[in-house]
């Protein structure tokens, strides 16, 4: 698309600003915090989703949905600069935060990269209108970081595939519509060479969605049990047994999360727990004047801004090709470590309130629970350990870790004493 066909980003920004101000409500941070902390009721949660679908539809109708997606699939065909302008104008306003990840990226991104023309025409506009919400079915109970070791199996039966197995850590599968699923189609070749990607609706026979309770009470994550689920071959994404080609790109999109131009994310609206800054916590805990506490406040801010600038550098480098796609792991690693440290800082500042608190303790209330959950920042979306492997091996070119599953038929890979039990 020629540059002169594109609306000037500044003009776009002005248009976005006036539309946002006249059409959207201001963000209620406490509602967001409750939703993220797992404190919202099922009813509230579903009402929230409904509102987000509605806003997404308003975006679509106003020409703000899929800013960087191709026009032929309902997007705006604009540039990351436009998306950035839109994000900035959106700051402080409500926006469909649950619809961003994994719905737009990686799911929609993977469909755009590998889907058939028919799949794209059917699903991308539906996603942009908020009619279809997508989730990724990637991890498995027995798999840990090793997503390519998927044991969920798809067996061909004429024009259909029959899927059996279990997937886990799917955010919000209980209120979503469609899933992107990595499955094994061949057990007799090494693990990366026997995978295939499928898509299917989540609420139909053969799919049993079970909500998992996290230690903080949140039930957003789900586990799916697939039992003789029949999927037409037309709902296959990419070639048979070449699902890992899709998977590599899929995980790149996952690591790019907050930097993907497909994602709408106002600055400052990071999906982190708590509704107060470390300075708010210090004020409400009565320790704002303490210089050790102020050191911690400063440290949290340093990590926050350094993480933001790093994200931008990596995103810019990946766009221009100066940094390889695998470089996204650098920002993922930093974000995970900094996130966990920030939860610890808030907990430390809360002092005794970190162990026991009342609802009157303001920003210092409940930080003990956020501390319990702090490693989520280093686990969700691919562990920091995997990111370190990717950085050392793919970015720095260091020797690959020895594995006992490289050139062995997947069927013969050692799985350990209790793998059977754990993987159901």
């Amino acid at each position, binding site marked *: 698309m020629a540059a002169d066909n594109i609306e000037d980003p500044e003009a776009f920004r002005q248009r976005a600003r006036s539309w946002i101000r006249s059409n959207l409500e201001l963000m209620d941070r406490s509602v967001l915090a409750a939703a993220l902390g797992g404190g919202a009721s099922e009813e509230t949660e579903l009402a929230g989703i409904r509102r987000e679908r509605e806003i997404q539809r308003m975006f679509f109708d106003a020409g703000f949905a899929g800013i960087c997606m191709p026009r032929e699939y309902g997007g705006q065909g604009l540039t990351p600069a436009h998306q950035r302008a839109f994000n900035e104008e959106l700051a402080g306003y409500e926006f469909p935060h649950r619809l961003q990840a994994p719905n737009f990226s990686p799911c929609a991104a993977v469909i755009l990269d590998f889907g058939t023309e028919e799949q794209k025409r059917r699903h991308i506009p539906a996603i942009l209108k908020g009619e279809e919400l997508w989730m990724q079915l990637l991890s498995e109970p027995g798999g840990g970081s090793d997503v390519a070791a998927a044991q969920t199996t798809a067996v061909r039966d004429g024009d259909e595939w029959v899927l059996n197995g279990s997937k886990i850590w799917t955010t919000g599968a209980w209120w979503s519509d469609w899933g992107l699923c990595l499955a094994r189609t061949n057990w007799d070749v090494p693990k990366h060479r026997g995978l295939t990607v499928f898509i299917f609706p989540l609420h139909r026979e053969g799919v049993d969605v079970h909500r998992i309770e996290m230690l903080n009470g949140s039930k957003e994550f789900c586990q799916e049990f697939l039992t003789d689920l029949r999927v037409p071959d037309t709902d296959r994404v990419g070639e048979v047994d070449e699902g890992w080609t899709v998977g590599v790109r899929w995980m790149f999109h996952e690591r790019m999360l907050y930097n993907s131009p497909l994602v709408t994310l106002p600055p400052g609206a990071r999906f982190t727990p708590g509704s107060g800054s470390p300075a708010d916590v210090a004020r409400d805990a009565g320790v704002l004047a303490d210089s050790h506490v102020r050191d911690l406040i400063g440290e949290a801010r340093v990590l926050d801004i350094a993480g933001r600038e790093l994200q931008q550098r990596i995103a810019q480098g990946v766009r221009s090709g100066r940094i390889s796609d695998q470089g996204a792991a650098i920002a993922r690693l930093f974000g995970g470590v900094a996130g966990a440290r920030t939860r610890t800082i808030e907990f430390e500042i809360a002092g*005794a309130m970190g162990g026991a608190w009342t609802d009157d303790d303001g920003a210092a209330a409940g930080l003990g629970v956020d501390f319990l959950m702090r490693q989520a920042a280093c686990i969700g979306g691919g562990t920091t350990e995997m990111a370190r492997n990717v950085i050392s091996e793919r970015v720095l070119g260091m020797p690959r870790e020895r594995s006992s599953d490289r050139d062995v038929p997947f069927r013969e890979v050692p799985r350990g004493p209790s793998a059977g039990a754990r993987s159901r």
Partner: protein
Amino acid sequence: MLLEPTSDQEFFRENTAKFLSDQVPPGEIRRLRDDPDGFDADYWRRGAELGWTSLLVDEAHGGGSLSGQGLIDLTLVAYEFGRHAAPGPLLSTNVVASALSRAGGEEHGTVLDAVLAGTSTASWCFQERLAGLTAGALEIRVEGDELVLSGEKRPVEHAAQAAHLLVTGRSGDGATQVLVPAGTPGLTIRPMHTVDLARRFSIVRLDAVRVPLDAVVGTPGQAAEQVEHQVQTALVILCAETVGTMQRAFDMTVEWAFDRYSFGRPLASYQELKHRFADMKSWLEAGHAVADAAALAVESRAPEANELVSVAKAFVGQYGGELIQDCVQIHGGIGVTFDHDLHLFLRRATLDRALMGTPAEHRQRIAADLAPQEDR
């Protein structure tokens, strides 16, 4: 925990360990989340029969230790409480029982007997907001033949379940301790949220609560030394309990690392994880070492006791949390689910870290001893 316990101590510890494994397995702890009291009266009474409440009490008052070093024996119980994330007011009953016994045991003999028998519990109303490890600002005033108490204590362990509250405060320039029966007019007990599933905490408010003069424990205005010893005792219990949580989380995770395969080989074969286990092992052993050193110093009333309890609390508070969080990380997503057991120990360690002075507060306390501030 003691590297070389006597066979009596080992038998005692194993008895408690077995009882806890039977009575409060992880599933039961998870169930207690919805139990307002957090523990069962019968469970506590049977624990008292095992010796949980008598170790700091003089034989003359119905107590007694195994080894002649009651606090050391008690660390074995606290350690097992940590290893099982066990319910019950272990800290507060022992601190109160010890205080009553040291004060002579006679005046409050009935209360002490019931606490020893486990038929009722007593709570220690000590901490206040931002008051550090002092008797606090709560005011204790003599009016005729009565004492009048006014102030607020938080967090107070198992206050709502206790028949008696041992309240510390100030009368004039001196520290005083008073035993207040539950239900005394002017006493309000407001529940708090906590990270732990089984422990319960409250804000205890005393609005001109009146008790007879003989409710005092020890000598009015002269309780500073007693309170300091109680603080040390409480810290020893918390540290031993934290070390128990560290040990359990570590053991669970070592086992997981051997069992769990990734890329065709056990997690335990990955050098990066092996090295983290090595660091954890060094923190764990150092945790055992400082917690034991603190217990021994307090038991023997050594001059360095005050510093050692702060060193131990600062150390296990910081490294205990880091160790268990690393265990969570190695478990991956399963480690932050409610159905997994790991968080039970993370919760207990997190609670203990926040009680009776955070690591940062204890580091300040250590620095204050090392380098008194001339200019303040």
